[in-house]
């Protein structure tokens, strides 16, 4: 499951390894609700993630719209995951490192 932490006024969401459609469906509503409540910049820590689904990409875009361009970023991406965003052409819109 997702672990939440407040660090330097940011909501850091540490995501589990496999972000397939089933997993995303399970926690999507809770995640978006928490983000709405916190009203803080959001960071997705992707250090453990080794697979992302289209459902997760949709969640990223939803969060991007919800909190704003400069208040959402993804960190600690593995090359495999980074390549997915690159091929999808989303790296130009989503801040990631």
């Amino acid at each position, binding site marked *: 499951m997702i672990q939440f932490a407040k660090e330097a006024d940011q909501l850091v969401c540490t995501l589990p390894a496999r972000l397939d459609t089933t997993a995303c469906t399970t926690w999507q509503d809770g995640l978006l609700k928490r983000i709405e409540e916190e009203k803080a910049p959001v960071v997705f820590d992707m250090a453990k993630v080794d697979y992302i689904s289209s459902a997760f990409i949709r969640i990223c875009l939803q969060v991007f719209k919800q909190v704003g361009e400069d208040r959402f970023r993804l960190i600690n*991406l*593995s*090359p*495999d995951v*980074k*390549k997915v965003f*690159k091929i999808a052409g989303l*790296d130009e819109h989503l801040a990631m*490192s």
Partner: protein
Amino acid sequence: MSEASSGLAGEIVDRAVTAAAVFGQLDQEQTDRIVRAVYEAGFNQRVRLARMAAEETGLGIWQDKVIKNVVATQFVYDDIRDVKTVGIIAEDHERGIVEIAQPMGPILAIIPVTNPTSTVLFKILIALKTRNPIIICPSKKAIRCCTEAARLCYEAALGADAPEDCIQWLEQVSREQTHEIMHHPKLALILATGGSGLVHEAYSSGTPALGVGAGNVPVFIEASADIPFAVEQIMISKTFDNGTICASEQALVVEASVAAAVETELKKRQAVFLSPEETARVEAVAWDSEKKSMNAGIVGQSAVRIAELAGVSVPGDTRLLMAPLGGVGAAWPLSSEILAPVLAYYVAPDFRAAVNLCIDLNYHGGVGHTVSIFSNDEENIRRFSLMMNAGRIVVNTPSSQGAVGGIYNKLNPSLTLGCGTGGKNITTENVTARHLLNIQRITRRRTNERFQRFDARRYYDESLDACAIEAEFNRNF
């Protein structure tokens, strides 16, 4: 021989069509005799042509252009000499398939300013080996050297009984005429090596085209690499012909644990690290901010000359300008392709971060072309390679010469490097003679035994799903 003024495009293609018809009668032995004669003629003039190219274009280093001419003749000839390209070229009796090689027809060869004579020699050899007449369309800045290379090849070909007009060339190049030839309905193929505009025009002509894509080659020195060796190889590659090969390294990415050693070795070899202010000055002369591409004026110039143009003081023996950058993309112009001895430089904290940087560089204008890694860790070489989108992933090799093939590896030697669909090309291979053939297949009746014994009426039974049909179809008695 051609006099290519406006309105003669059709005539040129018509002559090539006649040459194609005659060429089609030649057998393998006759064809190979022509190729041998042309190879020798080109090889024997390698130095004169290299000097001509360097003088006329003002780009690069003539000694390195000699090596390019050697690759385009000796290495290409070695690679194609024993390849069957006429008549029956393969027979598989078990499968009942016989392959017949047929020439394609007249080929228009677009020649870039960066590798002029070598590309002419290379394209002529692979065209003649496949019995295709060729029309050489040189860069406007390299007409004399290209036409001379084509002329001497044609003379040698005629001396070996090649058909008249098997090689033609345009002595006055205009965009309109090139356009007209490209669109000519009797033209069979365009071999488009050059800038993205010309390659795009070739693809848009409706004539089949083998093109190339732009490069932006990251080279990664991984922690297990032999550092002095890696740096020496990069220097050999990036300074070769003043960086005019599109497979030359554009950005060096090193892991932090070996960065100090890499920097020491680079400095030992006359690489100069630029300060942020100096980097900005070099950027101003190397990058055309209006066109959003490298400034053509610095292509193939020496490091010292570029420093001089930028108003940066460097020692007179400087071979390479190193530009440490903080990122990749439009905000960092030197992270783009610069065909000159200027190399972007990045230090990454670890392997993962370094590969991520290489992904950024690879996708910043170089998709499908070439990437390079120096490493002695097979697993990391594999992990790196799987993340890249590149037709050529060269390992422990100078990437300019490595991508071209034949010197440091067994890739087909070629001056036309396919970049796959990422580079808007149909192949990721090094283009060579086999790409210039239409292969016909005679296919004999060979019974599919499983289909023979299967009751085909079962397909009409909707109650049988794929698994049920498969079980019956594949049943082993």
